[in-house]
């Protein structure tokens, strides 16, 4: 590639000035002329029969334009991954976030008031809140139409012979680990505006992470609502945080559409913070039984895992998280024999969805905690067992992942060096060190039929470049990364590039901002389009300058000949020449990049991602034996990113992910009591503040992934994957107790210390 001028630089985010001045328009800030405000009434009970709903008084309130209940949903329309979720429920409610009525009014206040006037009579039913209970033979059914509460998605992966390997193993560690519900806490709450034109074409202003899939979902809904052959346009506002929360479509969006249809006016629904807590979908809580073995030298012989996931009352894309859990389960370290099963179980709890890491953090917590247990049994330093079994480039893993670039070893060594591992491990004096590694998809993930992204580039008469991409900017910096790639290829400045990425009427298709895929996929797509437009430009410039194409180069928007720098022409002039001529043309290029990765086959084998991201986190903690408080003294997060296109932004992903991981490990938990959320606010749900950050180092390891744009792999999710087990392992090293259910609270540590003292006593 030669010397890079823009790729690899610490370039500030393109949209940062807009956001630092308050000029960015989020969904909260948007208004459409004539717009009404929508509000949703939720169920009072987690499981009940709706005997009667009376909306008469609400409808009579001045300013109220529409009131809808489940009876108003046309054709029994349901949405979600298994189409089990009606936007407004009738008959039975299955969770406390069940939407049962909605109002559109001329102001938010009137809409709120109208909700209070809706009278609902319920017949309360016994709820099931424990997935293990719900799995039992003869358990009452959450959905009457299904035969079992266990979802018909049998997640099972088998490789080699685990039973035989168990017999041959010198050491085996087995245990059960569990994880809690945590929520995204996007500072900008969810919301949308649905608006129909006179021909019943729909525009949805949204903060979705999946514009193309959402467009498709809404088209399906319109069909069900009797509006066939209509168009849907999704326009994204600036997105106030994603982290996976906006990777699906939700009831509130369909409700806004239904309200707007009926009112013949645009309808805006924006969640309050309270709604954002209870009516969005958290990370799955899991119960994991794990067993791992090694030979006398510490080489892993097998890994067996059984997981139960609380699916909640409805099914979103989140029910497919076991597919990503399989990534570490089959392929984190070299393990020759694998057996994995997972069951997603309906309960009367909140239903779950995607959250950064998509199942990987839950699986890695069990794997990496148990690996330390195994190391102890085998009498090996936790570092050594990781070194012995480390992943390497060139491997083909049990799931047929082809590992083309792997910087895992370097990440581990960075952690060891920076943490001072050797002097600190095994002291058990209240201070301890721990580590955990990670594998994640780093070159997209083919979970959908297409994993592609399109880019269109057009260059105008003045040499300015418009990059129209399918990818979504959700704060991660995709706009900037794509600009850097295009600027580098073309030889123009960052300021000459404008990215358009928020309108399905204009932007090409993209599967969405998920799976840490945007830099890799949208980056490769932009790279392809940039090369194509450059070819066109150079061909024209060559004719103008009378020089061969091969001799030409562009820098700072000027094309010149390497043979004779006097022979040069500004980009804008080239374009004007080709435009203002008889039979003239405009320069446009497009490129759709669909990575050569594979959907899983029936046995869950297939090269899910073109490249895999690796990393290792190491942490030193101090545990107060009197209070159970954990203080992080040092935190090292080393990540193999292939190539850092923009280290400034990349570090931001690592720091941000890391702190989310620390919250997950040490404090965050949605407390549900019999279906009711007890801490749905920022006072009681403890997300980390600026006070909670430990000394942290983000270490970038580059492994140059040949399939990535300029060698890059994904980094969106990995930052929080190994955090919890690294901390749990450090706590064990410090005080000798292992906490197996997240979050690791002082109470749990004190209880474990007490039990340990009793055992000894």
């Amino acid at each position: 590639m030669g010397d890079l001028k823009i790729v690899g630089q610490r370039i500030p985010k393109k949209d940062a000035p807009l956001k630092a001045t308050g000029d960015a328009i989020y969904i909260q800030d948007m208004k459409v002329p004539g717009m009404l405000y929508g509000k949703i009434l939720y169920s009072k009970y987690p499981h009940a029969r709706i005997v009667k709903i009376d909306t008469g008084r609400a409808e009579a309130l001045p300013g109220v334009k529409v009131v809808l209940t489940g009876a108003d949903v046309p054709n029994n329309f349901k949405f979600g991954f298994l189409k089990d979720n009606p936007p407004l429920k009738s008959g039975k409610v299955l969770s406390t976030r069940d939407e049962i009525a909605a109002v559109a009014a001329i102001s938010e206040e009137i809409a709120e008031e109208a909700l209070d006037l809706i009278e609902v009579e319920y017949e309360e039913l016994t709820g099931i809140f424990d997935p293990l209970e719900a799995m039992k033979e003869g358990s009452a059914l959450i959905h009457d139409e299904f035969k079992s509460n266990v979802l018909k998605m049998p997640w099972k992966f088998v490789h080699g012979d685990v039973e035989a390997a168990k017999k041959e193993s010198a050491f085996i560690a087995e245990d059960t680990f569990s994880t809690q519900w945590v929520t995204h806490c996007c500072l900008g709450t969810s919301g949308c505006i649905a608006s129909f034109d006179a021909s019943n074409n729909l525009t949805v202003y949204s903060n979705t992470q999946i514009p193309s899939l959402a467009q498709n979902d809404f088209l399906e809904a319109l069909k069900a609502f009797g509006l066939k052959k209509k168009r849907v346009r999704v326009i994204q506002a600036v997105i106030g945080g994603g982290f996976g929360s906006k990777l699906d479509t939700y009831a509130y969006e369909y409700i806004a559409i239904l309200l707007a249809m009926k009112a013949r006016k645009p309808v805006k629904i924006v969640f309050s913070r309270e709604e954002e807590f209870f009516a969005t979908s958290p990370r799955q809580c899991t119960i994991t039984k794990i067993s791992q073995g090694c030979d006398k030298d510490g080489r892993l012989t097998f890994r067996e895992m059984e997981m139960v996931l609380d699916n909640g009352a409805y099914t979103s894309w989140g029910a497919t998280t076991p597919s990503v859990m399989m990534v570490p389960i089959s392929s984190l370290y070299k393990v020759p024999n694998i057996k994995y099963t997972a069951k997603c179980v309906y309960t009367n709890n909140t239903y779950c969805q995607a959250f950064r890491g998509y199942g990987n953090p839950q699986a890695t917590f069990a794997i990496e905690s148990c690996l330390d247990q195994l190391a102890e049994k085998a009498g090996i330093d936790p570092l050594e067992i990781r070194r012995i079994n480390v992943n390497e480039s060139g491997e083909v893993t049990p799931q047929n992942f082809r590992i083309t670039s792997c910087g895992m070893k370097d990440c581990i060594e960075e952690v060891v060096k920076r943490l001072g591992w050797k002097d600190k491990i095994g002291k058990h004096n209240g201070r301890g060190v721990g580590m955990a590694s990670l594998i994640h998809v780093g070159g997209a993930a083919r979970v959908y039929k297409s994993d592609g992204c399109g880019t269109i580039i057009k260059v105008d008469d003045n040499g300015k470049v418009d990059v129209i991409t399918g990818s979504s900017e959700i704060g991660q910096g995709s706009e900037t990364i794509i600009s850097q790639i295009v600027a580098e290829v073309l030889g123009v400045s960052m300021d000459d590039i404008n990215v358009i990425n928020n309108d399905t009427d204009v932007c090409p298709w993209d599967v969405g901002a998920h799976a840490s895929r945007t830099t890799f996929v949208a980056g490769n797509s932009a790279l392809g389009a940039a090369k194509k437009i450059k070819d066109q430009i150079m061909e024209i410039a060559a004719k103008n300058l009378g020089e061969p194409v091969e001799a030409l180069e562009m820098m700072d928007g000027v094309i010149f000949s390497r043979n004779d720098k006097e022979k040069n022409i500004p980009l804008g002039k080239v374009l004007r020449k080709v435009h203002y001529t008889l039979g003239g043309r405009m320069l446009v290029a497009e490129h759709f990049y669909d990575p050569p990765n594979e959907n899983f086959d029936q046995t869950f084998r297939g090269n899910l991602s073109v490249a895999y991201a690796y990393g290792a986190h190491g942490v030193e903690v101090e545990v107060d034996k009197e209070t159970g408080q954990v203080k992080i003294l040092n935190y090292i997060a080393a990540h193999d990113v292939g190539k850092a296109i923009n280290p400034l932004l990349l570090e931001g992903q690592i720091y941000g992910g890391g702190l989310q991981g620390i919250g997950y490990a040490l404090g965050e938990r949605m407390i549900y009591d019999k279906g009711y959320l007890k801490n749905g606010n920022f006072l009681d749900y403890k997300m980390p503040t600026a006070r909670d950050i430990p000394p942290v180092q983000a270490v970038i390891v580059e492994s140059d992934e040949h399939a990535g744009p300029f060698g890059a792999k994904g980094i969106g999710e990995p930052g929080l994957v190994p955090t919890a087990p690294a901390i749990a392992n450090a706590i064990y090293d410090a005080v000798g107790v292992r906490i197996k259910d997240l979050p690791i609270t002082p109470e749990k540590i004190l209880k474990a210390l007490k039990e340990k003292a009793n055992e000894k006593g």
Partner: protein
Amino acid sequence: MKKEITFTLNNEKVVVEVDPKWTLLYFLRNIMEMTGTKEGCGYGECGACTVIVDGQAINSCIYPVLEAEGRKIVTIEGLMAKNGELDPLQKAFVDEGAVQCGFCIPGMIMSSKALLDEKEKPTEDEIKESIEGNLCRCTGYVKIIDAIKSVAGGR
């Protein structure tokens, strides 16, 4: 029953009739259509709505608009110079990579602005304290603190 109040908003005198039920945030966003100040929770726990009132950073979502009478209020819209140049703090947030989704950033900048106006060279602890009430889910706060430090007399 509306009531007339007079105050200074971003260096301009404002005389306006307000509903005593309004919060300052409601007034800014819905009446003045100044949407730079964000609402993240509505009960004073996330700091996205932070503005500066007489030199103090406050949560405008729980601040009654009547309290503005006679006071000097600065919002995120009031920081940029007339010639369009960013305030040094805004520029630092941009340059240090402190901005991701950006929803918390106006509030974050106003909290740290109040600190820096009061104290030229705050300690790291004072910086953390000043933004403790401003929640951010994207950045892990590291680069936000770096940005504030870079303005507070370098590192």
